[in-house]
């Protein structure tokens, strides 16, 4: 054993062979970010995504259940819905903002959920890549189309 004479602590077992001259190898913390860490995982993107799912989910419970009660339950349910009903609702900025918030949160919440599912089940890199490209294209298209429709709605279109 190569323990130094001056040491008041008697080292035993596997650590006994180390000294200031012969230091033990440093074990990197398992998830430490180093220069070798890929750029993509140096941010907290996944943690923010996880948090977004929970926060947007809570807001969506209120917005979507309110939407369902208004559209499917009150005043004759789905039978009352027509162009005039939509025009009446979007005459109010309150319902415009309600629907706009619901559109953005639901689409981002749903897109992030589907991203997780693609990552879980699509095993080949190229399959994952193209499924996610399709997902983001559909998401951006739907969010922009919905936003455009809410902001450019014209009750006197005819």
């Amino acid at each position: 054993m190569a323990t130094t004479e001056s040491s008041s602590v008697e080292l035993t077992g596997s650590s006994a062979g180390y000294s200031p001259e012969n230091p033990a190898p440093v074990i990197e913390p398992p998830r430490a970010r180093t220069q070798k860490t890929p750029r993509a995982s140096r941010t907290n993107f996944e943690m923010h995504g996880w948090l977004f799912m929970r926060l947007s989910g809570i807001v969506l419970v209120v917005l979507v259940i309110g939407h369902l009660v208004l559209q499917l339950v009150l005043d004759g349910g789905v039978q009352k819905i027509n162009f005039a009903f939509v025009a009446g609702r979007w005459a109010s900025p309150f319902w415009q903002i309600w629907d706009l918030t619901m559109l953005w949160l639901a689409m981002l919440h749903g897109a992030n959920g589907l991203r997780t599912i693609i990552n879980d089940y699509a095993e080949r890199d190229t399959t994952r890549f193209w499924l996610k490209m399709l997902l983001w294209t559909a998401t951006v298209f739907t969010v922009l189309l919905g936003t455009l429709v809410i902001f450019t709605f014209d009750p006197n279109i005819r």
Partner: protein
Amino acid sequence: MPAGTLYRGREGMWSWVAHRVTGVLIFFFLFVHVLDTSLVRVSPEAYDDVVATYKTPLVALMEYGLVAAILFHALNGLRVVAVDFWSKGTKYQRHMLWTVMAIWIVLMAGALYPVLGHAASEVFGS
């Protein structure tokens, strides 16, 4: 039963599966729903024509299924939030799932007439 699989899961696994399945269904509906609503920018007639299909008995049944999926996803989502953020969440996750299912049954019973009442009178006459 698939051969060679021992794990059958419990409430935690099956609620996770149901959360995924309902989530995917809702996302695909949302995509279609934004498209059909966009017809208000085409013409009142185009919008009314498409919305008329939502008023038929068969689609009303699908709407009831959509409500079922959304209510489960919403209530179970709140349970997931509780499991993640409440210190006793994991301890009571199973109790919370049965609470979710009880509330879900009550709300689904409440939605029965508003969503399916018109379709029922159309199919069975009144």
